[in-house]
């Protein structure tokens, strides 16, 4: 005799995520960088910031760090993102 069983998963009920629209160019733009706060993010994002400014002509790089690298970004950080043209969220481990 067959068995009818139920699905144990979330069945893809999560809110869908989509990549933000691409900027036509980075020149003169403000790019935010949110680090998770681990030590190795520092040299990595130093180099990244240098490349953004020197290679791509970014006007300003805003560096921010989460207060807890295991938790979502703080509310004030999420609010500040609205003032930037682009955002890079990075994990260093």
């Amino acid at each position, binding site marked *: *005799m*067959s*068995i*009818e*069983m*139920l*699905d*144990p*998963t*979330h*069945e893809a*009920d*999560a*809110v869908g995520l989509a990549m933000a629209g691409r900027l036509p160019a980075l020149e003169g733009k403000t790019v935010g960088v949110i680090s998770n706060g681990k030590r190795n993010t520092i040299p990595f994002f130093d180099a990244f910031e240098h490349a953004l400014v020197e290679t791509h002509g970014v006007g300003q790089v805003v560096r921010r760090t989460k207060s*807890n690298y*295991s*938790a*979502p970004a703080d509310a004030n950080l999420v609010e500040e993102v609205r003032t930037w043209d682009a955002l890079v969220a990075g994990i260093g*481990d």
Partner: protein
Amino acid sequence: MTLVSKRYEVADILAAQEFCHSRSWTDGLPVVPPTREAVEACLEWALLPADHLVGVEPVRERAVTAEKLAVNAVMAGCLPMHFPVVVAAFTAMLEEPFLMHGATASTGGCAVLIVINGPVRNELGMDGTFNALAASDRATTCIGRAVRLVLCNLLDARPGDVDRSTLGHPGKLRYCLAEDVEHAPWPSLAEDQGIPPGASAVTVMAAGSPRQVMNEWTTRPEEILDTFVAEIKANMRHYSIWPGNYAIVLPPQLRAHFAKAGWSRRDIKQYVFDHARIYRREWADVGKAAVVGRHGDQEYGAMPDPEHLLIIAAGGPAGGFGAVIPPWLGPKSKAVSVAIGACVDCTPPSA
């Protein structure tokens, strides 16, 4: 009762196993097919409607409903009477201080330690004596496994998906025990955590693997605790120096010495808090000189305060074996206790 989960038809119980394994719905062990009847029986036992929202995991914005908990609980082998404990465990894990996403995603690889107190232990046949940290009885085994299956199936905390653990540890299969309060000289862990006396409760902690210690050569509480303190200090040197919840498991043979000497939980907490301390420079002794920096003389305590030590009475009657259970990573996750089947801010189910 209306269940919304998608339904699948399989030929028989063996086909059900391959169906589930092939979709990564299991931990590798066989599962009980979650039929509508079995899921409804869990929900009815807990007096919960299927759409009861136990909570929302905030990072992935994922609803944790009673129905999905019940489906996974059945798969893990839970009987209906086990199900309220699974609900309570997730109620606790969804409390913000537990930081469930971080604790289940971290490379640190902790597992959810679940400690059960109150009358429900005896009602469900739990045994906090022999082999207390392993598969000591059906109820703690199935409940602990159910928590893991929910994390995998509902929150995608499968290895390599959300679960990024470098190693993990065997407690990820199940890490659930009942406290042996009947043979303890103190009130239960749950009471110590603020749960009213007589209530059944769960305490959850994001926990590393147990580190077993042994001291059968003294009756002095201070010397017994020195052994536990040494293991805590070793963890601080070898793993993480940051203060957080530590748990110690004390078996009857050692508890008897504390009882005879008149030591309370508070006395034990204070002694461990006072002595479980290392200097940052000790990292250099274990190959971590690179991170000592300029603050080698800075002292670190294992816990922010004595209350962060969880004392668990458990273990078989013979043997001076105890365990230190370290935190996932310092203060990032806090242990949480909730009463089972008690709801202080919700309305009763309508139907």
